[in-house]
């Protein structure tokens, strides 16, 4: 087994930035995201003996992060994304349609945290259904269902954007 400090260093180098970006999109604030990721690594260190290597370090870290985000939203329910965040300009592919999204921020702000989580993990982190199920500790069919609903809501919000978001097909 590696020395814990070496391992922690490697994990922070490999996953720190991605975890922070994910947290930032989820909570809408860079400083809170930074704090949450720090807490995630500290929690990992404290509970490292409970890690049974049944999942990858990445999955385990994301699971801890999701729990911290959940706790954050228990304290602070409202969600407003930092204005400088996520000025996405491109086409988002849905199952049977695609849509031009100029700004995802408003659409994401309207989604509930449970739906936002799956959207972010699926599109932003490009995780597979199995991985998302493991991170969120729900079944694969649960992920598929949430993802389907989340996509529909996202599509509706983007489509309602009118001038900002233009339908392609």
């Amino acid at each position, binding site marked *: 087994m590696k020395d814990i400090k070496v391992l922690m260093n490697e994990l922070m180098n490999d996953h720190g930035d991605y975890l922070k970006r994910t947290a930032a999109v989820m909570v809408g604030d860079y400083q809170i995201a930074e704090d949450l990721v720090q807490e995630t690594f500290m929690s990992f260190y404290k509970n490292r*003996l409970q890690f049974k290597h049944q999942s990858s370090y990445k999955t385990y870290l994301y699971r801890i992060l999701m729990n911290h985000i959940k706790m954050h939203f228990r304290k602070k329910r409202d969600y407003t994304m930092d204005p400088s965040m996520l000025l996405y300009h491109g086409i988002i592919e849905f199952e049977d349609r695609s849509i031009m999204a100029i700004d995802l921020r408003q659409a994401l702000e309207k989604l509930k945290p449970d739906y936002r989580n799956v959207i972010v993990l699926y599109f932003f982190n490009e995780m597979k259904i199995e991985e998302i199920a493991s991170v969120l500790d729900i079944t694969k069919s649960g992920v598929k269902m949430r993802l389907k609903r989340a996509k529909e809501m996202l599509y509706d919000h983007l489509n309602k954007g009118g001038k900002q978001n233009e339908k392609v097909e």
Partner: protein
Amino acid sequence: MKKWNEAMEDIRFDGKNQVMQFIDSEENKRRSIFEKLLTILDHEIEIPLPSVVAIGLVFLLVISLQSFSNRDDSYEYTITVVNQWGQYETY
């Protein structure tokens, strides 16, 4: 969706030093012998509960069988009666 991730490339995790400081302070804390032992082993000591229960049950069964097989249910007894002359006779 690549652009989404790319749009945030300048966002970096800056809290590495704080986490390392936290680890250092935790590592320097006084720990019990058991915690030190766990750290050396670097994994939890797992007690295989089903196996322990099964072995315990087998032992219990063997001990109880032994005690039952050795037990002699017969025991001596006497009876005292009064005969026709009013004397006590013990058999």
